[in-house]
């Protein structure tokens, strides 16, 4: 029976050679290139969500020139006592390789404020993004996830949310039709920053 090769007897591995700097340098360089190329390529690919230029949405049949969407509801439909009502917002959505035409992208709360004007709030809670409900019994807005509460003007009623509900720009067009600029804002921070 032959002994298994005894690697420790090999003189080459016990001394670190003095010469051969170039060899070592080359070995390191070649190894680095071989290793880094796939890694860097991969890393750049991984960073795509931050790096890819969003193709300018070539206009949208659903939005007007200022980016407002028609909610297809009239101001007359809103209760005169200022109670809010939830309306769905429809828009075209592009998700990577798909385009979904005319799908629900979110909801807004509409109400008549004390001045009689139409006020719109995003239903997305500025705390952590759950959907805010209207509590008829308390006449306030309430988020069931972490109990954020807001009064009917959108101001926060307790310390859970970082800011009040996000008001959206409203336009009442020809014959009372309500159009809104539907935007989403960053959650968790006190400032209102558009995503």
């Amino acid at each position, binding site marked *: 029976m032959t002994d298994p090769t005894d690697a420790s007897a090999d003189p080459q591995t016990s001394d670190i050679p003095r010469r051969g700097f170039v060899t070592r340098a080359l070995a390191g360089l070649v190894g680095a290139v071989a290793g880094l190329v796939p890694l860097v390529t991969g890393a750049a690919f991984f960073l795509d969500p931050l790096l890819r230029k969003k193709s300018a949405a070539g206009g949208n049949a659903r939005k007007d020139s200022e980016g407002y969407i028609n909610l297809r509801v009239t101001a007359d439909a809103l209760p005169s006592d200022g109670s809010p009502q939830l309306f769905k917002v429809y828009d075209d959505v592009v998700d990577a390789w798909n385009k979904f035409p005319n799908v629900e992208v979110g909801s807004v709360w509409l109400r008549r404020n004390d001045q009689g004007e139409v006020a719109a709030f995003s239903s997305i809670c500025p705390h*952590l993004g759950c959907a805010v409900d209207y509590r008829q*019994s308390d006449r306030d807005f309430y988020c069931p996830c972490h109990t954020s509460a807001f009064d009917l003007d959108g101001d926060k009623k307790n310390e859970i949310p970082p800011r009040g509900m996000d008001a959206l720009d409203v336009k009442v067009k020809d014959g009372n039709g309500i159009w809104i600029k539907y935007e989403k804002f960053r*959650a968790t921070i006190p400032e209102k920053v558009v995503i």
Partner: protein
Amino acid sequence: MKRLLSWLDHRTGFKNLLHEALYERVPGGARWRYVWGSTLVFTFVVQMITGIFLWMAYSPSAQTAWESVYFIQEHMTLGWLVRGMHHFAAQAMVVLLAFHLIQVIIDGAYRAPREVNFWLGLILMQIVLGLSLTGYLLPWDQKGYYATQVATKILGATPLVGQQLQTLVQGGPEYGHHTLTRFFAMHTGILPGLLVFFLVLHLAVFRRHGIHPKKLDHAPTTTFFPDQVLKDGVACLAVLAVVMLLAIFKGADLGAPANPAEAYSAARPEWYFLFLFQFLRFEEVEHYGLAFGAIYVPGLLMLIVVLMPIVGRWKAGHRFNVAFTWLMAIAIIGLTTLSFVTDARDEGFTLAVEEAERDAKRVKELAEGPNRIPVEGAASLLKTDPFTQGPRLFAKHCASCHRYNGHDGTGRMVYEQLKGKDGNPIEGDDGKPQQFVVRPTAVDLGNLGSRDWFRSLLLDYKRHFAEVKHSTWYRSNAAAREQHAKIAERLKKAKTAVGKGKPDPRQTGELRAISASLIELSKRIRGDALGQRLNRLQGDRGQLAKELADAEVARNSLQQQLSADVEVDQSLLKSLANKLAEKKKTLAAKDAEIKALRNEMQSPDLFKTSSGDPAVVDRQNSRIGEWLAMLFDPEASEMAAWYDDEEALKSLNSDKNKADFENLIEFLVAESGRDDLSADKAKAAKGKTVFKSGKLTAGSVGICTDCHDSWKETGDFTPSSRDFSYPDVTRVYSAKWLKSFISNPARTQFYGVKNRMPAYADRLSDRELDLLVRWLVRDYFPTRIPDHESKLDALQEGLKERPDAP
């Protein structure tokens, strides 16, 4: 055999390796407390195996993730078991992880020379939690979707790089296809790879230092195999048993497909993160901002754990570490329990969970249907299902006045707070504002169109519409009637005083005063009547506006193509543009009509000037009387009068006419054409005769078609030529009738000038109207899910508790 093994050993040296692995010394004897590490490895292996098999059937995209998991769960051989094992082994891993960590800390096995191993273990813990988090999203159901949304938003709250991190993890500014693909790559590739890597290091470093026994004299030193291996094996078997029992008797659940646009009030993280969730519900914590409660505090606590090996150099340090561990364990268990208890007491949350479960059952029912799941994914199944969407639409739009079996359509009661005499909300026993049941002001629609509905309508009309009497408009009209009655009395006296001759100055003055009161009264009621007409016009306008909006979108799409240099049919563009212009004109005309009406409403006087002439005042008085009589009052309507006639009621109720009456009911029920009511055609035909002739076996009743004369034998219902209406009974309570009705109940073929219900054409899209109506007539894919239980009793009870209860 021995020779073969010996040959293999010579080639590979496996015997040595095996000896190393199996005969590790265990000083102090094999102990149960050492099993946790092995159970963790075992559970991980179970996850790898079940995971790889699930991988063979799972498809990570927004249209196929839920769908492929549904298929695994419901259709594949033992799919439910493989998935169940994967689901519960994941939970087991978190529990075992906690045991392992606590055991290591209590036994001081984190101290020198095992610090690095401790840190490697902590890294492994993070990886396991990461696996849990990424795995929870993969079914792409409502639960996983919303729970993960919260997690990524918390990530986004990290100072400096939070936003970029969130975008990277999500694969974009929003959740979508790339979120799933990234999470999937993390869950099946990156994290398991890292886990194996660190596990190897962890085991290697562990073996370098060996077991750290707390009591060396507990038992004689032994070897890993067979003593510890036996204990480990038993523990692993126990874990397996628990996982299998849970998988078989509880089963992994699958919520409804993720719908970013549908609110999900039952959102909760998986149970082992509930303590964090509960922590974020305290105002004292949130006051300092989300990063404080979600990142800094947990980060700090984690840091303390990381520093344990260093702190543990001193005996006091070790005691601190152990105390800290127990404290954390108690706090975590406490917060988790608090979370469960709070949720159990929250009626809103409990109902939301029930609704989520209904949706989950329903979508699976629909997926079993003849058309299976469409290409755009299973979410569309629920969006187009009347059984799911109808109740929600009802709750949103109808429950302000109506109820459905006492609730708002979704099983929830409608509540409000009431103010006491001091202007503050009345409080309940718990010191919080008390919730009072809101009084419905319109008919309960729970049995709309059924036989009971018609029986109640015909035999008990006043009670059928009794809720209407609680509404503001009714009370206002009742007050107006009272006022009118008083004025009429006064006029009678004045006319008697005048007699046949001409009135003297004093009597003229009195008549003029009466006239003035009549004019005031007329302003009020005419303003109200004009308001109703406005309602009808707005309903019409709403319909026109919808058509215009559709035309605009069609024209815009085509124009967009044009500006993108795509070939466009010019004639089509032209016709669309023409249509659009036409619709704009019609809408403008309607708007002008509305404007004119609004002007008229500025001065709704029925009469211009007061007069002292008794004939004029008399005319004014009767004119107002006519108006008031036209307003809807269940107590005084012609329908009520129809059977107020004692003879008629006796006839209808008598035994001899029972069959005729039932036939009449059957006829009315058959008009709707509803399949679920299974109207008897023969009976209905006989009932039609009663309807048209009023003849009963013994006696007769008023002929229905005398008033409901717009009824057509065949074809659709038609507009009435009258100003006020007897509702058209043609195809009554059919989907088409209901759609037309709800769009504009003020149309002359429905309630006409007597109407008090808003016209929904301007606030419900055609799609929504269709869903609502189909739900009401039960025209949807059959379901085994029972209706929400009736809350009629609870409603009556609740109404009694109101301070304004009679």
